[in-house]
């Protein structure tokens, strides 16, 4: 597909998702209290979008990932949170 065709197919969807992201950040900041490592990770991941690399999706995923390599002693539960608390 040409770049124009890709834009025709996906621009409206991407535009809507971008506005959703903006509204999400406004919503978080409007609410009382502190945010946490998830929001820091989110802001770090956003930076990847503007760097001009051809593999942004991969880099965003990497930025949310646990960078360690050793198995943990015990599973703390079953679920995942979506971001890694780099400061823990």
């Amino acid at each position, binding site marked *: 597909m040409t770049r124009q065709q890709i834009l025709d197919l996906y621009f409206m969807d991407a535009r809507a998702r971008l506005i959703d992201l903006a509204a999400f950040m406004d919503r978080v900041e409007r609410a009382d209290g502190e945010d946490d490592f998830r929001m820091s990770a989110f802001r770090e991941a956003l930076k990847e979008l503007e760097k001009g690399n051809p593999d942004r999706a991969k880099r965003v*995923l990497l930025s949310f990932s646990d*960078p360690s390599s050793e198995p943990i002693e015990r599973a703390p539960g079953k679920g995942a949170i979506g971001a890694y608390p780099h400061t823990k």
Partner: protein
Amino acid sequence: MRYIEPHGHMVSRTTDDYQDMALAGCAAICEPAFWAGFDRSSADGFYDYFCQLTEHEPKRAAKFGIPHFCWLCINPKESEDTKLAEEVISLIPQFLDKPTVLGIGEIGLNKNSRNELKVLELHVEVAAKHNQLILVHTPHLEDKLKGTKLILDVLKNDKRIQPERVIIDHVEEHTIQLVLDAGFWAGMTLYPESKCTPARAIDMLEVYGNERIWMNSACDWGMSVPLAVPRTALEMKKRGHTAELIDKVIYQNPLQFLQQTPRFKLL
């Protein structure tokens, strides 16, 4: 359109889903053993589940003209209790001769703990000893990259394991290359909220090629779409991919992998 659903947890789905899948051209469904959404209290619960997967569910699927196959294991979400896991794993060999059992799966890791790793190794041992295909679940979200690397290490260090007989599922943009470079098959799971959207799955096909790769809905009791594979095929068509390529990805590729066991037979 014809397609194979290589990963669907049909015990959690309705007969309407079977009907929709049949109408969409589903030629076979493969069901890996999964966590029930709650912890089963004993190995007996797993015995019943394995009977459900090997006896009851194929009959339910047959009513819609779809052959149903399964994979057996204790899911990594229940692997922290190694004593229970050992009991469950000891039940598996008696089911391996059932006519619709494809192999061991979906095994792998969830939170990347030592016990999960130990249980993964026990499963790999059973698969190697009984010459079974393997289907691997990789962890979710922030745990996926680390888990994928740990799983690949276990599999690569066991010289009995042939990578072309192992599918590593739920790959995303940050793990797909690791899996394909090591010679394994890669599964892309099409989920509405986590994992991968149709658009991204097609991106990965365009970037990483269409060999040793399949797509699945992994539909289960959570947010998931049983028709995710045919819907993605439709999106491939919109993206200008040929009918031949679409057929390769959603039918020929899973067929090529699954036919490595003589159990996998289409009607």
